[in-house]
């Protein structure tokens, strides 16, 4: 039906390779989030799928049908652009109606179609306005409505919340999943915001420099990031990263943190004796009593509330800064000397040179369902 398959896609601009032999499959009805820093190739990938640019190599299959050489208008996809790309000389109504007009629908059908999608997106009252008279939020909804109105089996959303304010983004982040689920369409959603990615994606493909570094469910990406970079991209506050060199004793594998031996329950054998970076999520750290085994003495430097959490910046005796977060309302200490302990199961170990997580499967073959 409207599954999407990309086979060995290569796209170059002049000498620069933007997409490097990329393969990816999205199941019918699935929402795949493409996540990564700017310049990772997400937008290019989306445009290749939409058909407005052509790959240098590889094939694009939509619903099992080879569409590589087909022009955009024949692919039947819907797309919302990051900068909205509304037609400035048309009213919101006409903007939204364009996909229906292309199908030569009757005036009545067009009117019903546009009005129902506008109602859904709460922009029914501005349909007669031209884009310049719309607020950013209304523009964004108009753009979305235009992408949705034709009920395309494949929806491409290019960071649609990028250019709207925080409040609206928050609202939409709640609204969108339901909206997309109702449509039943296959969705590819590009974002740079990990929370959006986590909230919307059935699966997330983390891209960097033209390749997919990791593909998996939001849970997998968060818990088992393939490398330091991905670990750093997901999570707020950012993951703490400290240089360590794991060793083994009778109790198992441990690392030294501020002269304290911290044993790691889930650590991989391969880490022993290697130069590593340990990744500690701030929420995997907790303030503890001095006597708790593996308690690390630190000094509290600062404390900030962040959303539902309180984030504390502490400093180890060696002078390394660590972020600790705890849910709001739970007791903590706002100054002086304290002790923290590590949830040893959730600690992540990365090779210091390659940045790869030690123990992760090498994520290369990213066919659906085979993720790490």
């Amino acid at each position, binding site marked *: *039906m*409207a599954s999407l398959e990309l086979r060995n896609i290569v796209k170059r601009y002049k000498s620069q390779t933007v997409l490097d032999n990329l393969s990816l499959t999205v199941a019918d009805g699935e929402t795949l989030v493409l996540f990564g820093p700017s310049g990772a190739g997400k937008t290019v990938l989306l445009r290749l799928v939409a058909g407005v640019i052509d790959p240098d190599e590889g094939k694009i299959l939509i619903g099992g049908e080879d569409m590589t050489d087909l022009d955009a208008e024949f692919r*039947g996809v819907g797309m919302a652009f990051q900068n909205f790309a509304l037609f400035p000389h048309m009213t919101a109504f006409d903007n939204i109606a364009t996909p229906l007009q292309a*199908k030569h629908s009757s005036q009545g059908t067009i009117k019903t179609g546009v009005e129902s999608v506008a109602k859904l997106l709460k922009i029914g009252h501005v349909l007669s306005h031209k884009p310049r008279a719309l607020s950013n939020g209304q523009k964004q909804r108009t753009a979305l409505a235009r992408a949705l109105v034709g009920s395309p*089996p494949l929806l491409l959303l290019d960071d649609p919340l990028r250019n709207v304010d925080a409040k609206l983004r928050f609202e939409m982040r709640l609204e969108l999943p339901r909206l997309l689920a109702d*449509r039943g369409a296959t969705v590819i959603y590009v974002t740079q915001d990990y929370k959006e990615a986590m909230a919307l994606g059935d699966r997330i493909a983390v891209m960097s420099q033209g390749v997919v570094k990791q593909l998996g469910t939001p849970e997998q990406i968060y818990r088992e990031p393939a490398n330091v970079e991905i670990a750093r991209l997901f999570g707020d506050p950012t993951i703490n990263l400290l240089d360590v060199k794991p060793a083994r004793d009778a109790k198992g594998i441990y690392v030294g943190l501020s002269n304290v031996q911290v044993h790691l329950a889930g650590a991989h054998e391969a880490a022993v004796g290697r130069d590593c970076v340990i990744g500690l999520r701030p929420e995997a750290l907790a303030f503890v009593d001095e006597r708790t085994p593996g308690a690390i003495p630190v000094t509290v430097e600062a404390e900030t509330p962040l959303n539902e959490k309180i984030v504390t910046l502490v400093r180890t005796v060696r002078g390394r800064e660590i972020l600790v977060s705890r849910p709001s309302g739970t007791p903590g200490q706002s100054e002086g000397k304290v002790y923290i302990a590590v949830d040893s199961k959730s600690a992540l170990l990365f090779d210091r040179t390659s940045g790869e997580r030690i123990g992760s499967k090498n994520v290369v073959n990213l066919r659906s369902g085979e993720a790490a």
Partner: protein
Amino acid sequence: MTAATIQRNRPSGFRISKRVLPYLLSLPALLVCIGILIPFLTSVVYSFQRYRLSQPWARQFNWGDNYISFFTDPKFWNTLQVSLLYAGITVVLELLLGLGIAMLLQKRSTLNNFISIMLLMPLMTAPALAALMWKLMTNPGFGVLSYLASLIGLQDFRWASSPSTALLTVVLVDIWVYTPFIMILLLAGLRSLPTQPFEAAALDGVPRSFVFFRITLPMLTPYILTATLFRLLDSIQQFDIIYAMTQGGPGDTLTVFQVEAYLNFFQSTNVGRSAALMIILWAITYFLSNIFIKNWLRLRERARGQA
């Protein structure tokens, strides 16, 4: 949503390949112009001949002689110098003036729009006729401008008839006729600039001069280059105004390329020499516009990056 794929449009019948399309779009324009290439090449051949219409029996190839003779001919160097000087002065002055006027009229208002259209009127006057009128207006007796000049103490200002002021006068007429051309292009450019950077700068209290040099100018550069390019091409080939005002005089003060080539062709009927002069002019314009286009493309990219 089962019907999803069925709704999709199907490519039907004749389709133009994406790769061929741009060629198809630009080809007609090219074909229409290419016809001109043949006369052009014929003229290149002429330029390598000893070819005076009044001495048909002596027509023969003399290869580079027409060109070589220029190198030792002080009149040619004078022509080159005057042409470049004229083009340089007019383009720079018209650009500055055109930019200034465009900025004065930048704000959208009925009055400004009206003024900008009115200012186009000199451009709508055929240069040859405009020059005729200026000649009358600068006549020492009947000329209103000479009269006005005398009122401010310039009793004996000789306008186009004195070697020291001829260039100035002709430049003045050129400015009068062609500044509106630059003005209208830059005005359109100014008014299509995005407003955000300016609003932001105004909010931040950034000095005006900084805004002008760091935001306005760079973003306007593509428009400036287009306008300047066309003005330069026309200016270095100026004929109508100069010929109607002074016929290249007084002395050899204003014997620019086109005037020389015109006299060589229509009066001396020395086709070979005239063609050689024109080819050199063509080469100069080719060279100059090449530089322009290269920068144009580069600056467009940069301006787009900022916008």
